[in-house]
């Protein structure tokens, strides 16, 4: 039965929705600006139990636990960016140091069209959004590899002592296409590789969390909705249903 809330509870729940949106918008800012370590420290779960079950998902699987997430989201990205810098170093002698890391690179990752629900028990929240963004990697010869990026965002947040924190974040990459090319003229090929699939790294829990060839097939089942309390089934973490076909979700 649907819970009745007092007026004060209603006000707080309205405010919670705004706070949840703000967390994901802050994520977008940090993510775009490559301030990944700062993001993990500022926005992600801090309580030890939550840190163990935290998860970062990409199309090809999940990174589970804050230690694994940090290795991927911060260290692996640093390696990617250092590879870009090495080309400048070889061509122009640019120093291989933190001050020059990110040279020639730019990105924007938005979190548009937010859909947010707070659990009736007030302990967790679920967010869905859509990322329309880009990445651009410069080269020492003055050219750049530039891509548009489109995809869904699913996120579970959990309330800790100092507010809402990201617990499970799943970034589902739909389309990556080089700018200046007619995407609608490209072949509809199920094996067409994402040009930036290196960004997915090597997840610790490898499985298909999202297959862009089948797109948003389970949107109705996966999108957030009013709910009483978080369950494994509802979760956007590795225990949840993202990427699973209907006959696994609901076996007969």
């Amino acid at each position, binding site marked *: 039965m649907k819970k009745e809330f007092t*007026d004060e509870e*209603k*006000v707080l729940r*309205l405010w919670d*929705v705004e706070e949840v949106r703000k967390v994901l918008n802050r994520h977008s800012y940090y993510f775009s600006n490559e301030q990944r370590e700062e993001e993990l420290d500022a926005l992600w779960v801090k309580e030890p139990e939550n840190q163990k079950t935290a998860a970062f998902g990409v199309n090809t699987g999940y990174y589970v636990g804050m230690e694994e997430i940090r290795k991927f989201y911060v260290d692996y990205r640093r390696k990617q960016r250092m590879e870009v810098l090495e080309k400048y170093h070889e061509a122009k002698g640019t120093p291989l140091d933190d001050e020059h890391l990110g040279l020639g690179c730019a990105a924007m990752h938005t979190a*548009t*069209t*937010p*859909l*947010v629900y707070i659990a009736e028990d007030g302990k967790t929240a679920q967010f*869905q959004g*859509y990322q*329309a963004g880009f990445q651009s990697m410069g080269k020492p010869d003055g050219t750049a590899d530039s891509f*548009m990026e*489109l995809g869904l965002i699913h996120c579970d947040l959990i309330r800790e002592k100092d507010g809402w924190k990201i617990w499970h974040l799943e970034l589902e990459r*739909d*389309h990556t*296409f080089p*700018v*200046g*090319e*007619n*995407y*609608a*003229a*490209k*072949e*509809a090929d*199920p094996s*067409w590789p994402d040009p930036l699939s290196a960004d997915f790294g090597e997840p610790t829990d490898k499985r298909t969390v999202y297959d*862009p*060839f*089948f*797109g*948003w*097939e*389970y*949107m*109705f089942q996966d*999108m957030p909705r009013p709910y009483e309390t978080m369950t494994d089934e509802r979760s956007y973490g590795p225990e949840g249903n993202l990427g699973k*076909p*209907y006959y696994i979700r609901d076996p007969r």
Partner: protein
Amino acid sequence: MKKKLSFKQRLHNAIGSQTVEEYKARHAYLHGVGYSREEWDYMWLKSKNTTWAHQFGRMVGYDEVYLNSVGHMDNMCCHAYGETIRHFPQYMGHDIRSSGSSGLHVLASDVIEVAEDGKSARASYLTPGTLTGPVGFDNVHRSGVWLWERYGSEFAYVDGKWQWFHEQVCPDLAGDYDTGNWAHNRYLDFIENDCTVGELGGRPAQLTEPGLFHRDYTIVQTVQDTVPAPDPYTTLKDVPDDKSYSPGRWDPTDHVLVEVKEKAVANFDAQMADNPFGKIREGDE
């Protein structure tokens, strides 16, 4: 003069405003996957004054909106799926309506006003839509289209629940990304190919009020103000017709209806007399 609202009234209106955001987002995602029933059954008001308008005119009454937006849409989805699995058998076993979808009318720049009487809400949005898919309509290529639109939406609070009452969709420009000059290419399509102003929205199965309600971009048009952003207001009845997203249909209880002079079930004809490019193609000018 603006009325001073009590705490309870302000809370009610704040919940209304956030519900509008929730409904618009739910609609955007469900529409993206062709799950029409799941939005019209849950969110829409079952009233004779319920309307849904597009370039091609206005559907009037919940039944007509449902016929077009659910029955007609589902029919098109099933046909499209039937064709797609001939080319890509990988889609067998996958959802008829939603598999392969990933296009979204991205929501931006919302202006939401809840009436002082707390019985209705009005909203305007802009959308830089990204209509992408791994398999396009031709079942040969991917799809990748920008679709820039604006929306005017009205909601009614009936039986203790916020319900979607009126929608007017206004497409402004579309084109393949990431190539070419969308605006100029569209002009060339108007004069050289089989393209007509008013055809960005497809064809409904039935329409009570056909007409060219909003023009897609041409180089001969002036600025359109079809769905102006809502101003603060007292009650839906007081919104002037030139600001309303469904003129005259302010009553969600069906006691006051707009008379439809002809019981029209007309199909939209894009070759109407005021269409600037229809005549050029026919060689009249």
